């Protein structure tokens, strides 16, 4: 019997290892030959651990599994009390356009043959036949923008590095996914690591870089383990090394673990950290594309940006650019989190209204209570409210509504959420994680916590002071940490003034 079961961290956190052990034990007890394939996750976290069994050529889902559900699986998956039918026919799967995550949850993450059988390496083979400028032009034409949060056109960044002259250039993958409410990078690296490796190799060929680094946060031990194993396998198979797939062109890479500093998700801070320094933000210019890692021209791209490159080369820039809305081309892997009935990863073309994501796809709150607010884009993103639910999910559209797409995480809160506390937490987090280089962030965040505590205590003058402070931080901080930390604060204040008390009315 062949069973697929995720080894994704979320599946493990919900008991996948106990299910795997029970499968092995039950197979031994029955004398059945078991082929257990540990995959990534399909992204339906509320159904994890989700087992899959093949029936008449289709993979059928059974879940959420516990060890106690295992024996019945051997009596026939179709009749299992937790049988859900063919995976691909589930609403959550059918409603998606999975390009970046096409293989995640499907293949054995560490099988290169499985990877190649599902379209892997086709993009790299095509890129090997192209000149560097053609590779960069293909990415530009796809309309791909940085998925880490800033939304900067990826092709433009690559072009700058291609045109920079230097004895050594680098590809750096930002896998320091510290934003709460986001986990797409983790899922991709655990579920389809060769996609990231392939994307980085194409980037290297495109800009003339022969070395790459993945800066991966230490809070993701499973992702580190899978990525390190995948790099070893890729090197053994000649996908990485002196001659990529026998082309005579070199590209190699390694995985570097972070050390628990949120600010290292900021690209210049990340570069300092990779160099072995304190993760202090650098002033720009110079751009990392001109003077990046060790002062050399460097492409710094998010995991999802690089992992989307292979499908662009496999299917063509026009295919990818055909999806989307306005200047937001292609697909975006949404991460639906917090207090939601159906949380997980949902990849779709840009443009889906926020309300449809929250109410229809995610099914509202887990608590069954009304949705109060959705924080879009991580800890530095604004709180958006049901009155804004017709906002289409695109960079310019969300920005126009006072929000931030960021890394496309959506954290849902029910009506029990204390927005003053969430605002205070945003400032506290900024104070804990500030690198300390610029004053508005280093001092401002501390003063922000104090001021919000005064608001809590009913101080009438404090709200006006808070608004001034937020403006100073937004305008005066060196990077997005201090610059965007006021977003959740001012949006909470705007939408829920009553929670900031009589103090606000008195101040006005």
């Amino acid at each position, binding site marked *: 019997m062949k069973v697929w079961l995720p080894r994704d961290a*979320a599946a493990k956190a919900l008991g996948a290892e106990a299910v795997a052990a029970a499968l092995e034990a039950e197979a031994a007890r029955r004398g059945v030959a078991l082929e257990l394939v540990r995959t990534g996750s399909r992204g339906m*976290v509320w159904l994890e651990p989700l087992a899959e069994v093949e029936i008449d050529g289709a993979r059928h889902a059974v879940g959420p599994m516990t060890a106690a559900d295992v024996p019945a699986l051997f009596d026939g998956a179709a009749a299992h009390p937790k049988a859900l039918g063919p995976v691909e026919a589930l609403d959550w799967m059918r409603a998606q356009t999975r390009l970046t995550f096409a293989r995640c949850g499907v293949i054995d993450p560490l099988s290169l043959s499985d990877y190649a059988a599902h379209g892997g390496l086709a993009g790299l083979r095509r890129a090997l036949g192209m000149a560097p400028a053609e590779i960069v032009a293909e990415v530009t034409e796809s309309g791909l923008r940085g998925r880490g949060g800033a939304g900067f056109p990826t092709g433009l960044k690559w072009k700058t590095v291609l045109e920079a002259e230097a004895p050594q250039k680098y590809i750096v993958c930002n896998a320091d996914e510290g934003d709460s409410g986001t986990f797409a990078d983790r899922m991709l690296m655990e579920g389809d690591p060769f996609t990231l490796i392939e994307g980085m190799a194409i980037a290297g060929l495109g800009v003339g870089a022969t070395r790459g680094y993945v800066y991966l946060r230490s*809070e993701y031990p499973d992702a580190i383990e899978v990525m390190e194993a995948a790099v070893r396998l890729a090197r053994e198979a000649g996908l990485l090394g002196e001659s990529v797939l026998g082309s005579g062109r070199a590209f190699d890479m390694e995985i570097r673990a972070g050390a628990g500093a949120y600010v290292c998700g900021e690209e210049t801070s990340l570069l300092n950290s990779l160099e072995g320094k304190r993760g202090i933000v650098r002033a720009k210019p110079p751009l990392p594309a001109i003077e990046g890692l060790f002062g050399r021209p460097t492409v710094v791209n998010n995991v999802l940006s690089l992992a989307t490159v292979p499908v662009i080369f496999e299917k063509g820039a026009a295919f990818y650019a055909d999806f989307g809305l306005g200047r937001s081309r292609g697909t975006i892997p949404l991460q639906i989190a917090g207090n939601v009935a159906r949380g997980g990863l949902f990849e779709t073309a840009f443009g889906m209204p926020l309300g449809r994501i929250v109410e229809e796809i995610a099914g509202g709150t887990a608590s069954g209570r009304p949705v109060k607010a959705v924080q879009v884009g991580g800890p530095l993103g604004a709180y958006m409210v049901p009155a804004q639910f017709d906002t289409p999910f695109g960079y310019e559209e969300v920005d126009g509504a006072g929000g931030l797409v960021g890394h496309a995480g959506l954290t849902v809160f029910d009506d029990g959420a204390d927005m003053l506390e969430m605002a205070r937490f945003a400032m506290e987090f900024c104070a804990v994680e500030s690198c300390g280089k610029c004053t508005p962030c280093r001092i401002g965040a501390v003063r922000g916590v104090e001021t919000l505590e005064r608001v809590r205590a009913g101080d009438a003058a404090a709200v006006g002071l808070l608004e001034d402070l937020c403006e100073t931080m937004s305008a005066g901080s060196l990077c997005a940490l201090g610059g965007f930390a006021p977003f959740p604060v001012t949006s909470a204040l705007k939408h829920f003034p009553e929670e900031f008390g009589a103090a606000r009315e008195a101040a006005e």
Partner: protein
Amino acid sequence: MALDTTETRHARLEAILDAHAGREGPLLPILHDVQAAFGCVPAETIPRIADRLNLTRAEVHGVVSFYHDFRDEPAGRVVVKICRAEACKAVGSDALAAAAEARCGVAMGGTAPGGAVTLEPVYCLGLCACGPAAMVDGEILGRMDAARLDAALTERGA
């Protein structure tokens, strides 16, 4: 347990430094390995690391003290990390953290007297669709509550 004399500690440090010789930007990987070997980055290792990398002691200390991961003394026998970030707060991690503090007899960020448990905040484990999330001795746990945390600690004799 192997004898941990000054000589063996010295040899272990040299072996780590040798293993990273010639790498680009080796300091963070070295510090991770030192902490894995000694349970922390002991103060006495800093001058030697600095010497080998041609850095000042202040520069190495500056790096060690910048990152939350690096400790200057070993943690308790069991390390409990509880996610305190937004997605977990949306599903009750504040209550979980309070329960953990009561169960362990120590405030967040501290080590219980006797060294049984170290309790730490963590800002996101990437388990945002199945929070509140925690990590107990490296094992990741989703949808945690006070009872499951108690069971995980009891299982580890803490």
